[in-house]
């Protein structure tokens, strides 16, 4: 068990900086998820922690020890790859024991440890098989067992579930989370799937273009995004962004489920505690218990999520009302969030910004 610290870590490929000065503390025993769009440098960051890529600049510490110059095998980390990366010519048993043998464990010790792990991940009947004779889910378990058997301080996982079908993926998510609780080691998990990030992580690191956008617990990330990027990246469907009522230098955002939708016929009185827009429904998606409405308003296209109880038809004229407390204010130029106390939403609406 150990915490992992990145200090001003950068990585260049062919003179192009793909990781731009990361400062990050990954607490001991945390389940930290790196999430962000494709190409933002998640895998590169993880691989630098593993030692598979040399950092161009900065310092990486694992449990207080600087590891920049340590080879991967000496960092006391284990990694699970997206495509499993099992040794195809070795049996499941040899796949799991390979790392132990290379660390000088005797045959007897290996056998005890491998059999113990095989029991935990449910591979006991398959130890003699070759990876090619296993299903995708079983291969994933071998990869996990291979990492677990070394009892590393840090587990690194790069999209380990993305090759599994939806059902198995859900099941493995639950298993990984409980595994993390059981082992108590530090997990660093890379994914581009925000649902995976939100359900598994206790600390989420949102990255974009080689930089950290925000580090927070899942619910904080959702409720208090630091900037436009995080606001729009986390949450599905994404946060609606509309121009601010008065000020040119701001934009406002609100979550689709925080808006109320009413028939235009119902009288609407603007008041200081809500933003009101009107428009008409362009399309409707029924998702089961929820319904999504795409509404063309005078402030642009927005999405509203409601429960399915009373359906409105496409084409209907509607009011969209958003309580003031649900409005997020961002600086238009920098994308930075402006804190509630000083964002002036109420003043702007009172000043006649009600539409």
């Amino acid at each position, binding site marked *: 068990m150990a915490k992992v610290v990145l200090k001003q870590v950068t990585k260049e490929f062919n003179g192009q900086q793909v990781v731009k000065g990361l400062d990050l503390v990954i607490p001991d025993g945390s389940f930290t998820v790196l999430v962000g769009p494709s190409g933002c440098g998640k895998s590169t960051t993880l691989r630098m922690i*593993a*030692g*598979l890529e040399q950092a161009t600049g900065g310092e990486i510490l694992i449990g207080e020890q600087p590891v920049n110059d340590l*080879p*991967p*095998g*000496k960092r006391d*980390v*284990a*990694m699970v*790859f997206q*495509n499993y*990366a*099992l*040794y*195809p*010519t*070795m049996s499941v048993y040899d796949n799991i024991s*390979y*790392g132990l043998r*290379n*660390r000088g464990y005797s045959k007897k010790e290996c056998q005890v440890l491998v059999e113990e792990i095989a029991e935990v991940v449910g591979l006991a009947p398959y130890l003699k098989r070759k990876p090619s004779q296993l299903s995708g889910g079983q291969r994933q378990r071998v990869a996990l067992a*291979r990492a677990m058997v*070394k009892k590393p301080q840090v587990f690194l996982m790069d999209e380990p579930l993305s090759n599994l079908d939806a059902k198995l993926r859900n099941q493995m998510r639950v298993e990984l989370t409980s595994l993390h609780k059981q082992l108590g080691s530090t997990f660093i998990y890379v994914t581009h799937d925000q649902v995976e990030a939100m359900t598994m992580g206790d600390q989420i690191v949102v990255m974009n273009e080689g930089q950290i956008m925000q580090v927070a617990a899942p619910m904080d990330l959702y409720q208090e995004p630091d900037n436009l990027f995080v606001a729009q990246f986390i949450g599905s469907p994404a946060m609606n962004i509309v121009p601010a009522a008065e000020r040119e230098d701001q934009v406002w955002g609100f979550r689709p489920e925080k808006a109320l939708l009413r028939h235009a016929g119902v009288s609407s009185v603007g008041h200081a505690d809500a933003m009101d827009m009107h428009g008409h429904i362009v399309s409707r998606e029924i998702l089961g218990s929820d319904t999504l409405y795409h509404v063309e308003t005078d402030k642009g296209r927005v999405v509203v999520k409601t429960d399915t109880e009373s359906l409105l038809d496409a084409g209907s004229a509607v009011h969209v009302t958003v309580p003031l407390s649900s409005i997020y204010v961002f600086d238009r130029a920098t994308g930075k969030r402006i804190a509630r106390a000083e964002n002036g939403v109420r003043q702007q609406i009172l000043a006649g910004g009600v539409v």
Partner: protein
Amino acid sequence: MRQAGLTAWKTVEWLLLAAVGLIFVFPFLWMFLTAFKTMPEVYQFPPTWWPESWQFQNFEIAWSSGPFLTYVWNSFLVAAGILVLQLLTGVPAAYAFARYRFRGREALFGLTLIALMIPAQVIFLPVYVEMSHWGLVNTLWALILPYGASAFGIFLLRQSFMQVPDEVIEAARLDNASEWKIMWTIMVPMAKPVLVTFGLFSFIYHWNDYFWPLIMTNSNEVRTLPIGISMLKAAEGGKLWNVIMAGNMILVLPILAIFFFAQRHIISAFVYQSK
């Protein structure tokens, strides 16, 4: 209609294969049959197919006309020694060419490919001079050392090492395996089909090689089987074809045996490769 066309095509295919097969098998068959004939029968015209009586003593005559056991042993030492050396040099070279980025890599690999195109006959003179400088002429070393690195082997192995996914090697590095260990426990087993192919090719080539031992050896203690057999011809004035063919049978028998026993492995090696 389509069925009939397909059957016709299959028949043509089989006939072609049979014809090609016959062309390859006929010399072996003729060698085999001649090895059991009497001298007069060998020269008989029109020739007989089947020996009138099976002359097993031809083999005895061939075997006892020289130190054949020594020849066989030498041939084996040379062919096996070359193969071992070629793997010891070729596996690391191929691994480096396939997996490392270093200055001059392309140029060095280009040189290796050029070596592939130079036949032994072109360079035997300087190599001979070198060997004689080292006092190795007329020893088995002169037969083994010049072939200790195979450009062909390096080329084949490099191709197959390049197919190994990066992640597998990275996983091994995380498992604390040294480069040496990765090479022999990860890369080599994954390249097994290519290794089997190359091993057979190299072993057979050097087992059969006539030119190089002819130049480098001049005493029975270090001669190899092909030279021993050619000396049957010299000793008997080139007339005893039945004895020579018996000698040739002794030459090819071990190779046929290897094929016979390794067949399953060879086929599975190729099946694995094409998967």
